[in-house]
């Protein structure tokens, strides 16, 4: 590959910078608004400066049990992510390895679940969870989130499993291992980047999800995203608290993605087979 010239590098940095600014503006606005006194929210001073205050953050945790909403969100998100990653990787492994003339039909059937809008199933979910007494529990949301992303993540993991050479599994078979051990000791570690991508997708989806959380939870299992919107009422919109809540909601996602980042590296299978 040719070396990138200084000029090209500068261009890359400029374009990256512009893109970064475009993406960072909303986050800056959220942070700035969460620190502004309510009075300055819509009537900024001429120089745009304001005296920062943590009042909205304090209100969030003192006037409402926002910490409980965050805990609910964490339970639901981690629960569904863990469940999804374990179960879906097994499913994807089966799709990747089973030789059967109809296996592609099964794979397509899984993909077809992606073809209807989530809102179509909200009411049936509501009726089902109400009848089994799971309404307004974290378990209901864990079940919903764990099923919602099946098509995407199963297909994603299948792609990563397809990349792991079958010769490695055969070698392990000859070495004396059964299929379950081979999966956990050979295939899964080599598909770790896929697992990380899958986990990130599940985490972000579950953490940010609003529609199902709004419909299926009441006060006890309410998640942070729904709680933030409760500051939006017909009487008043408390922008400061909404922004403070939104900023807090951003943080775990960023931490999770950064944690998974080291697994998101390619090239783990380099050197295994020629």
């Amino acid at each position, binding site marked *: 590959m040719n070396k990138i010239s200084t000029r090209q590098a500068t261009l890359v940095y400029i374009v990256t910078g512009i893109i970064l600014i475009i993406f960072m503006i909303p986050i800056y606005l959220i942070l700035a608004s969460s620190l502004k006194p309510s009075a300055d929210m819509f009537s900024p001073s001429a120089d745009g400066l304001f005296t920062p205050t943590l009042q909205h953050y304090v209100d969030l945790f003192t006037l409402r049990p926002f910490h409980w909403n965050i805990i609910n969100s964490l339970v639901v998100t981690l629960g569904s992510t863990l469940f999804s990653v374990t179960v879906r990787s097994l499913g994807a492994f089966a799709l990747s390895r089973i030789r059967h003339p109809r296996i592609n039909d099964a794979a397509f059937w899984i993909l077809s679940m992606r073809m209807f809008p989530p809102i179509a199933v909200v009411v049936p979910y509501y009726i089902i969870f109400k009848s089994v007494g799971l309404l307004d529990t974290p378990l209901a949301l864990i079940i919903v989130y764990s099923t919602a992303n099946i098509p995407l993540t199963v297909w994603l993991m299948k792609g990563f499993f397809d990349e792991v050479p079958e010769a490695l599994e*055969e070698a392990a078979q000859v070495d004396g291992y059964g299929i379950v051990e081979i999966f956990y000791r050979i295939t899964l570690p080599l598909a770790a980047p896929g697992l990380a991508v899958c986990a990130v997708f599940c985490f972000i989806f579950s953490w940010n999800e609003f529609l199902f959380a709004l419909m299926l939870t009441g006060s006890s299992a309410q998640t942070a995203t729904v709680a933030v919107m409760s500051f939006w009422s017909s009487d008043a919109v408390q922008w400061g608290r909404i922004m403070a809540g939104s900023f807090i909601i951003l943080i775990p996602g960023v931490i999770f993605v950064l944690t998974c980042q080291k697994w998101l590296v390619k090239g783990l299978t380099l050197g*295994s087979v020629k």
Partner: protein
Amino acid sequence: MASVSLSNVVKAFGAFKVVHGVDLDIADGEFVVLLGPSGCGKTTTLRMVAGLEDVSGGEICIAGEAINDRPPKDRKIAMVFQNYALYPHMTVRQNMEFALKPQKLSKAEVDAKIAGVAGMLGLDALLQRKPAQLSGGQRQRVAMGRAMVRTPEVFLFDEPLSNLDLKLRTQVRMEIAKLHKQLGTTVIYVTHDQVEAMTLADKIVIMKDGYIEQIGSPEEVFAHPKNLFVATFIGSPSMNLFRMTVERSEKGPVLSSAAFTIAAPADMNGKVHTRPGGDTRHPPQRRPPCPGR
């Protein structure tokens, strides 16, 4: 160490047969090479012995025991794959340890075995490296080490040298021959390279289109090919072929062509006959199943 025998072994994918009733006896400690062009069924046959392919018909025995329905781990075999199949997330040492783990040995025994094999193959300096940090030749040696460390009864090699350059190939070939002499383990070795076959084998099995064309020592298949395929396949440059006519002369039968005439070989006397078309292949001889049973 163990003998291996294949009786009427068939492999079919659906209605499509790729191995047609192979019969083969491999003595204890023998080095047998399955040789043939691509797609002749040699690798499939080896994989059936390894247990990586189901056997569609017939019986495979190792040390007199039928092993058709046993998983690979219960066959006392070790295999070296064409692409080495080293576990990329493990170091060389861990690759070998992983192969030993199912045997549930003590740590001292594992260490001793690894040290022994590493010494024999010159892997001592590489034990802490991962496969990605090794050259092709080193990977090949590690793959052999991983197979050797388990002290199997039968070694299976699936074209182990085809990814190496010519010089390295010659060198590793010598090493394999030396190791076989040292260990005395039964070896089944698949290759399409006749130089490898001729230099390594005690016995060569030449295959084509899923049939065995000839079984014999390297000298036998070279000097006395059983049929035209073997005659043209073995030897480089390959044997010259002439279309001859059998004729009578006052000195006895002669073979003549437009260019020259030679006396028919003595053992041809009385054997020359014509077959009214159809298959000229020798009809397969059925044998009793596993000798040890």
